[in-house]
């Protein structure tokens, strides 16, 4: 059996399962943010109204709002808090960080487990060797909260083999964006994508994170990476919580394999209107930008802050660019303080925001006027997500975002930074 099949078989109490079968599996973790918790709680209280069977498996993170700007938003948070307390659900309040980074740092997702959430980027926990996928409010309300279970169709697995070594200036985030362009939005509908190969194995945990993150945009059900010593080392840093034995697929059990070589890859940018509109940065036209942001599901990691500090040490921020830094968790902010990165980035003209999901959908920040543009490490760029539907969002690596912040236009870091090999973590695997 393949890895995802083994996880679903164990969770549903079966000896084996096959792609296409419907199983009812035990759920180890349900994760929700401020918006999805509100909608889920409404359905749950109105239509189900049972006790939450395993409240310790349910985690709520306020990440879209770090400080309510309107009375209506404050009302939503008050409702969510009361609901979480009533049921004894884990709650991370405003200022905790991006939902998925908080859940990972908190040890709420572990190898071999089944994790669900309404947020469509929930598959990111596949970086830990978990089966993780996005499901809807009615799944949470109907089965996960009252019974600790969910139904799944066992997905077909495609092995995505990534080989080669990156050139300086190109990072794992560029690989992830490039794969969306290569495979195409909807190019892997309903599949499980298992990332493997020498390139993947060489990555640190937080760089592996960027690969399962994109699977939703390919239409896939989940993305997975087999747990190994890198995973074990990361898990050893987490708070102790109940978990499972890690599971790996049977060697040689491969039905379909797609292979990609990243050796010649150039820095990439996803241009509006969709995540799949990916180009090499140097072919993207150098559009003027008004905003740059490190944050969201795909950014605000300590690695991103180190790179940005390295860039601002070499080049001044462009006066017409607002450069937002949104640490992905309190742990990252604390680490950045300890390393002096907060002072350095602040002096370099960047603006720190509280740990949160930043400008994601402009709930608490990041609305743009018609004609404005932002380049960021966020996960989505559909028009209208950040204010005006005539504003533009470009998605790129932290390095490209920082380089662009210094030039006031979308910039290939290789154009402006001569000593790329000296940058923190710019070579894959350097931060293992």
């Amino acid at each position: 059996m393949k890895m995802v099949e083994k996880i679903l078989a164990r969770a549903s109490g079966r000896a084996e399962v096959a792609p296409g079968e419907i199983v009812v599996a035990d759920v180890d973790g349900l994760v929700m943010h401020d918006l999805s918790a509100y909608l889920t709680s409404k359905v749950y209280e109105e239509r189900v109204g049972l006790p939450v069977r395993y409240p310790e498996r349910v985690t709520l993170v306020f990440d879209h709002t770090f400080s309510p700007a309107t009375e209506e938003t404050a009302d939503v948070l008050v409702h969510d808090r009361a609901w979480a307390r009533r049921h004894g659900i884990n709650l991370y309040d405003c200022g905790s960080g991006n939902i998925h980074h908080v859940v990972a740092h908190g040890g709420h997702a572990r190898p071999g487990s089944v994790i669900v959430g309404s947020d469509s980027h929930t598959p990111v926990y596949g970086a830990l060797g978990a089966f993780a996928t996005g499901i809807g409010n009615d799944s949470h309300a109907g089965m996960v909260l009252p019974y600790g279970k969910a139904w799944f169709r066992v997905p077909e697995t495609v092995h995505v083999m990534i080989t080669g070594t990156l050139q300086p200036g190109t990072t794992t985030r560029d690989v992830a964006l490039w794969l969306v362009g290569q495979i195409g939005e909807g190019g892997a509908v309903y599949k499980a994508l298992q990332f493997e190969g020498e390139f993947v194995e060489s990555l640190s945990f937080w760089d592996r994170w960027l690969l399962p993150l994109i699977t939703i945009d390919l239409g896939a059900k989940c993305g997975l990476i087999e747990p190994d010593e890198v995973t074990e080392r990361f898990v050893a840093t987490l708070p102790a919580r109940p978990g499972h034995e890690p599971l790996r697929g049977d060697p040689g059990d491969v039905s379909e394999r797609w292979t990609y070589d990243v050796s010649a890859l150039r820095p990439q940018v996803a241009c509006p209107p969709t995540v799949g509109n990916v180009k090499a940065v140097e072919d993207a036209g150098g559009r003027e930008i008004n905003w740059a942001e490190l944050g969201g599901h795909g950014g605000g990691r300590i690695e991103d802050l180190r790179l940005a500090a390295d860039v601002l040490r070499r080049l001044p921020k462009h006066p017409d660019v607002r450069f937002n830094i949104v640490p992905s968790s309190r742990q990252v902010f604390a680490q950045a303080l300890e390393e002096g990165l907060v002072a350095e980035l602040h002096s370099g003209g960047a603006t720190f925001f509280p740990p949160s999901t930043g400008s994601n959908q402009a709930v608490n920040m990041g609305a743009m006027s018609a004609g404005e543009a932002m380049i960021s490490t966020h996960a989505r760029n559909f028009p209208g997500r950040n204010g005006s539907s005539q504003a533009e969002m470009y998605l790129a690596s932290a390095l490209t975002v920082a380089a662009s912040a210094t030039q006031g236009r979308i910039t290939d870091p290789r154009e402006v930074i001569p000593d790329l090999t000296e940058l923190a973590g710019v070579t894959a695997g350097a931060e293992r």
Partner: protein
Amino acid sequence: MTSQVAMQTSGRAWLVGDNIPSDQMVKSHRVFLPMEEIVRHVLEDAHPGFAAGVAPGDVLIAGRHFGQSSGRAIATKAIKATRVGCVVAEYFARTFYRNAFEIGLPILEIPDIRRHVSDGDPVSVDVAAGTLRNERTGETVNGRPTDPFLIEMLRGGGLIPIAARLAGESA
């Protein structure tokens, strides 16, 4: 609480394009509004006349990867609230696909459907049989078969009415 979900519908076809994200069906700043308000803006960018013109039983027809992006069920619920009888797409984003059956919104996947139907055509759809008939051209097109488990869920009015039984709980 079990709602009646009709497996057959007839009405006007409303055509929209490829890769329409769920957050363009219901924009984020509206997700907390009452459904009567949300439904007035459904798909406002993709088909500006849809929300005002849709009649009960009509059929929304989309291209590839309909409902990508955020997986929250509010998008499917808002489309159901327009009282369309069915959504047909070349294929759906999987969260939208799952949510549709769970909330009792009939949907059907038909490859290349937009070659067989124009905006405004009168059409009839049988979800369980997996067919769409264009009443203007007289052509019948076959869709991808839907898993019997999902058809059963749809007939039952969605996931919540069958959840306890599915979880092996007596209810």
